[in-house]
């Protein structure tokens, strides 16, 4: 028997001994015990849509992100305006990004062709998202169309993220309810630009992830 198998059996049997567990696992009993666990915390949001978007905006601004609003037909022109203001031209994009989000005059480069070193040379990244949480000011990315692999939104120093109003939910549990279906996809929650509080507990923006974040809210 290989070492790892020996260690596995030893640990599991040590756990069973310690728990005084009966031989054989009664999965049905465990499942019904699990179902009876208390969950009296807030799961559904109660805010009206306008207040919800205001809260989300407020949270993001507190994290020092830029937040802009636009309508679905003006996404492309807003993207152009924000990128010009930031002075960023060479922008990485994931597969599946709607072409109408990509205005002329910029150098959009499909990220699937690059390694990390090349990503490091680009000036920013433009993506959509899966879902967002107003209460915590978090945006959730998955490896899906218009979002791409995790390194894409990590290595460049600037991130412009397009969030639709319908993607913004009030509570963390609501977000998990929506994520549950594709839970196996690589998933990243980000709340503002990268930050640390390791030196004297002061929140400092910008360590290893993107130091600059803009969110374009489509209402």
């Amino acid at each position, binding site marked *: 028997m290989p070492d790892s198998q020996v*260690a596995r059996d*030893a*640990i*599991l049997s*040590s*756990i*069973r*001994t*310690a*728990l*005084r567990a009966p031989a054989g*696992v009664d*999965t049905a009993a*465990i499942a019904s*015990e699990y179902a009876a*666990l*208390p*969950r*009296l915390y*807030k799961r559904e949001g109660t805010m009206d849509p306008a207040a919800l978007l205001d809260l989300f905006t407020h*949270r993001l601004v507190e*994290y020092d992100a830029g937040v802009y609003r636009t309508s679905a037909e003006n996404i492309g022109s807003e993207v152009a305006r924000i990128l010009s203001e930031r002075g960023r031209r060479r922008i990485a994009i994931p597969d599946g990004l709607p072409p109408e989000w990509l205005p002329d005059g910029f150098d959009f480069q499909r990220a699937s062709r690059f390694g*990390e*070193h090349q990503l*490091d040379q680009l000036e920013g990244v433009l993506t959509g998202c899966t879902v967002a949480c107003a209460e*915590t*000011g*978090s945006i959730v990315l998955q*490896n899906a169309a218009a979002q791409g*692999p*995790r*390194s894409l939104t*990590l290595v460049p120093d600037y991130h412009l993220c397009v969030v639709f109003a319908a993607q913004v939910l009030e509570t*963390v*549990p609501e977000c998990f309810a929506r*994520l*549950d279906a594709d*839970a*196996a996809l*690589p*998933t*990243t*929650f*980000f*709340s503002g630009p*990268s*930050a*640390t*509080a*390791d*030196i*004297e*507990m002061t929140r*400092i*923006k*910008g*360590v*290893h*992830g*993107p130091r600059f974040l803009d969110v374009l809210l489509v209402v």
Partner: protein
Amino acid sequence: MKEQAHSPWSNRSFPEAAKDLLADSQIRRNVRHATNVIQAKRNRVVGELPDWEQLRDAGAAIRAHALKHLDHYLAQFEENCTRAGGHIHWARDAAEANRIILELIQRHAAKEVIKIKTMTSEEIGLNRNLQANGIQPHETDLAELIIQLGRDKPSHFVVPALHKNRQQVREIFQREMHLPDLGGQPEDLASAARTYLREKYLRIKVAVSGANFLVAENGAVCIVESEGNGRMCLTLPDVLISLVGIEKVLPRYRDLEVFLQTLPRSATGERMNPYNSIWTGVHAGDGPKEFHVVLLDNGRSPILADDESRQTLQCIRCAACLNACPVYHQTGGHAYESVYPGPIGAILTPQLHSMHEGRSLPYASSLCGACYEVCPVKINIPEVLIHLRGKVVQQDQKTLSGKLGLWNIGMQAAAFLFADASRLSLAQHLGQIGQKVVVSKNGFIEHLPLMLSGWTQTRDLRPLPAQSFRDWWEQREKTQQTPIATAPTSSDKTQEKKHAG
């Protein structure tokens, strides 16, 4: 595998180690400042949630349930993580975990690894072991980098360099990164770390991490962090090795909805920390091509056997109990001489070592209960502390010196006296006579002899009254007419006031 260097933690007792730290006013200032800041932030964002207590209840129940069926959930995690392309390894102790990780790194002929902050790697002394075998680990968490470059040891498990202020960090970076002109603002220091580490992220092909949560139902792993160093280590290298304590498993993916609310608010006082990563196994075209999880027991499974202290393993390492603890506030983390400091360390450390190490730690508390109040998974730390004190005593009673020690004899004598009314009454009468040698002129006992002297170091005691309550009661029963006003306590109160004045 070569032998590793010695652990940086000495086997001094808490009072011995605390004495040195209490004399270090710089550390005390830094610790006080940092813990005050985190606590204020934590209280603010916790106060925002009207359902905070319900989140604590759910968190405690989920963790307790997972521990109660740990064998089942671990096997389920193993099956699902393997199906998703991960490799599971089991390590009974630190040596086994070190050997597994070293072999994995050597298989890829790597000479350097990048690391995300992980308490379990600290617990098994991974860095020392890797270095002894010619592999250089690079810590990427800012605080861990400060500790590593400063050849220091962590004092807190969310903010390991909490005992260092910005000036001290600047000096370390200037020296170790060869940046003589580095500025002293936190932004300058963070930016220096960004440049120093980015080259490593892009070059080094093996990463080592811990994990905050494992999900049994789909084999997912969750890591909660701030800086993005975690994301770098989790996504850029070809090989990722996650070392995780066996207790970290949650039944379902959606259980994260509880802990991703309580952990950030408790740990750093944020509504959500900047980054959470959740992934299952390997994913083509995204992240490492090879993923290993090393499940570490190292003294955890026996803790499950003890119904009273099993709750210790519910811990999600938020460190709120450290920040709330009046003892930690004074001493900082190094006084605990343990990877896990503070109230949770005081119950976890001795249990991980079957009560053979860290035996002074259950006493490093005033039992005020602040730790229990802030704990997001409701670990009743004071209850466990008392329980473990009992274990220390029982252990001592098994040795000859313990059995014949003054404490044991004293306590046994007390137990004997308190067990019977006539014995207690006799003892009280003897005490009334015997105390005459220790009562001072002001009518108070200012100095008790021998091992009791500690008690009178900072307080005076009132002597036993001339008439005990039992005597008074007996007399009252006989006469049936003693009015309450003449109860013997009234004269005592006058004396207390006089003394206070």
